[in-house]
């Protein structure tokens, strides 16, 4: 469960502690209006309009292209059926309407990462619109509208010689990514703080990963986010000047960039200045947003319907068929597990952060007490997954192995420390915990007579501690328990040792 921290927004909690400039007095006079635009690559096998692989990371430059995605003359694109289905599934998960007619359009602009001179996207008749996403920010419910979810193709990637844009004489173009199916999810400007924006992204990413359409990797850019930020005087409905923020590739960067931008705009406004409508990039190293040379007037995309692609007529029967493939979504699952297993809201949220985690929990909770399963998953297993960088469901031990281990613990066959040691030992290598316990004689020492003999030896060898305890010093008992545990190689049941010592010292 290495990803837990991110999925529940723990990442942001860290950044909240590492303190950005504190909210200043200028900020409190204004209200932030934030809208997010997310681009998410779809987990298809092939590209959007050709049969090249959609997996492009780590491949030699330009080894994953064909005449269609190279934009050579005379070729015809054909729509990837799975990409359409994934987009509809996403739109349904976000409570969108799916119109019965949709089409693709050409978005024209010249840039070397776009070999055709246009991107095939959707303009006025997207695959879906009018949805919403609900979540909580600091205990208060927030509903953010979803304007639309549409389908388009990704661009290639550019490498600038020396990475210094202004001094580079040439740029290198790799078209391996060109044509990968890309979903654009446009949110309404319903978010009012950097925290709300981050939470929206965390929840959106969680849903996309739950329904299996996106791998949620911000660093590698399979899940990307741009933000529009403006400020208005608190209580006013007037719209402020909108600034677009780009280049935020972690949840932490999103939070910091938005917080920075809100404070920057507030300072300009409070100082009687005016804001410029512009695009600014987040520069992590400087901890600041920086104006990118305005290309506003180049944003004249001259959209027109894509003549090479017949439109799509997706009837309600199709939509209903897709809806039936929808897995239980995280919020509903957290609610159900909370009720079924008596979990706290926090535990339920943590345990359902990723679908695999929730699957693991449900499998375990059906075999051992639910509380025991929750404690181990959220405690030792989460720590180990994080430390070894392997999620439980991908580990050698696996969910079944952990269940076998916890059954031994629950039945009293082994004690807690032994279970923990076995977890660490078998986590990556795997193996049958019961067989290992049998083979090495790790079973808990529950033979009272045998244990009593050891207890007597320990009392005899630690006369001072025994005398202390008899004189009323409770703490001395701990020392004696420790000695007995040591003498038994950690196999004794601590509660039993405790009882036997008390009986002998009475």
């Amino acid at each position: 469960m290495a990803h837990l921290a991110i999925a529940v927004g723990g990442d942001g909690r860290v950044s909240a502690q590492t303190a950005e400039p504190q909210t200043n007095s200028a900020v409190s006079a204004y209200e932030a209006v934030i809208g997010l635009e997310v681009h998410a690559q779809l987990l298809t096998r092939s590209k959007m309009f050709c049969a090249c692989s959609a997996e492009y990371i780590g491949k030699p430059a330009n080894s994953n292209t064909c005449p269609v995605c190279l934009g050579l003359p005379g070729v015809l694109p054909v729509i990837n059926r799975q990409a359409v289905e994934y987009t509809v599934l996403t739109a349904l998960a976000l409570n969108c309407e799916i119109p019965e007619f949709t089409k693709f359009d050409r978005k024209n602009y010249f840039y070397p990462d776009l070999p055709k001179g246009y991107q095939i996207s959707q303009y006025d008749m997207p695959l879906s619109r009018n949805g919403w996403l609900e979540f909580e920010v600091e205990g208060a419910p927030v509903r953010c509208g979803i304007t639309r979810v549409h389908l388009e193709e990704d661009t290639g990637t550019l490498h600038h010689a020396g990475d210094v844009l202004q001094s580079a004489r040439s740029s290198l173009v790799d078209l391996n990514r060109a044509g990968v199916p890309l979903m654009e999810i446009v949110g309404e400007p319903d978010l009012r703080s950097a925290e709300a924006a981050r939470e929206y992204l965390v929840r959106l990413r969680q849903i996309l990963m739950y329904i299996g359409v996106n791998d949620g990797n911000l660093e590698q850019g399979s899940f990307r986010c741009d933000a529009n930020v403006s400020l208005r005087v608190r209580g006013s409905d007037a719209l402020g000047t909108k600034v677009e923020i780009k280049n935020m590739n972690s949840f932490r960067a999103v939070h910091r960039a938005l917080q920075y931008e809100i404070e920057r705009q507030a300072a300009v406004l409070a100082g009687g200045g005016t804001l410029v409508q512009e695009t600014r990039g987040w520069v992590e190293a400087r901890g600041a947003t920086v104006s990118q040379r305005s290309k506003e007037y180049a944003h004249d995309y001259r959209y027109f319907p894509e003549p090479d692609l017949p439109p799509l007529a997706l009837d309600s029967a199709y939509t209903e068929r897709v809806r039936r493939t929808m897995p239980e979504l995280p919020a509903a699952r957290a609610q159900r597990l909370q009720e079924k297993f008596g979990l706290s809201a926090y535990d339920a949220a943590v345990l359902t952060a990723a679908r695999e985690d929730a699957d693991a929990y449900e499998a375990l909770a059906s075999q051992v007490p639910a509380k025991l399963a929750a404690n181990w998953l959220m405690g030792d297993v989460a720590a180990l997954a994080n430390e070894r960088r392997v999620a439980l469901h991908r580990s050698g031990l696996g969910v079944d192995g952990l269940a076998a281990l916890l059954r031994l613990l629950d039945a009293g066959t082994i004690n807690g420390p032994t279970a923990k040691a076995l977890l660490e030992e078998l986590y990556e290598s795997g193996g049958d915990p019961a067989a290992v316990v049998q083979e090495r004689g790790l079973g808990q020492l529950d033979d009272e007579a045998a244990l009593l003999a050891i207890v007597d030896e320990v009392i005899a060898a630690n006369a001072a501690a025994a005398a202390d305890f008899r004189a009323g010093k409770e703490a001395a008992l701990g020392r004696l328990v420790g000695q007995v545990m040591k003498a038994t190689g950690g196999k004794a049941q601590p509660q039993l040792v405790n009882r036997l010592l008390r009986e002998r010292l009475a």
Partner: protein
Amino acid sequence: MTLSAADVAHVAVLARLGLDGAERERIGSQLEVILEHIARLQQVDTSSVSETAQVGELVNVMRDDVDGESLPSAVALGGAAASDGGYFVVGAIQDNELDG
């Protein structure tokens, strides 16, 4: 229909054409002739014709999500004016290029 000098300059930037003053003037007047022609077409009564971008009646033409062969990169780069280490090489991307 009159096309301003600013319109011509704007279209030139979008098309990434670096035009000098004389060229802008010459091409501007040619563009104007084309626009006048379109303006005449727009006078035709099309109120009974629904907007269309497709002449065929096809809908829902899709392919299964199966990955196939890509081109060897040497072939992909075969038509490039310049390439280096498997990459296409283009002039440096600088924002001010868009200023014409």
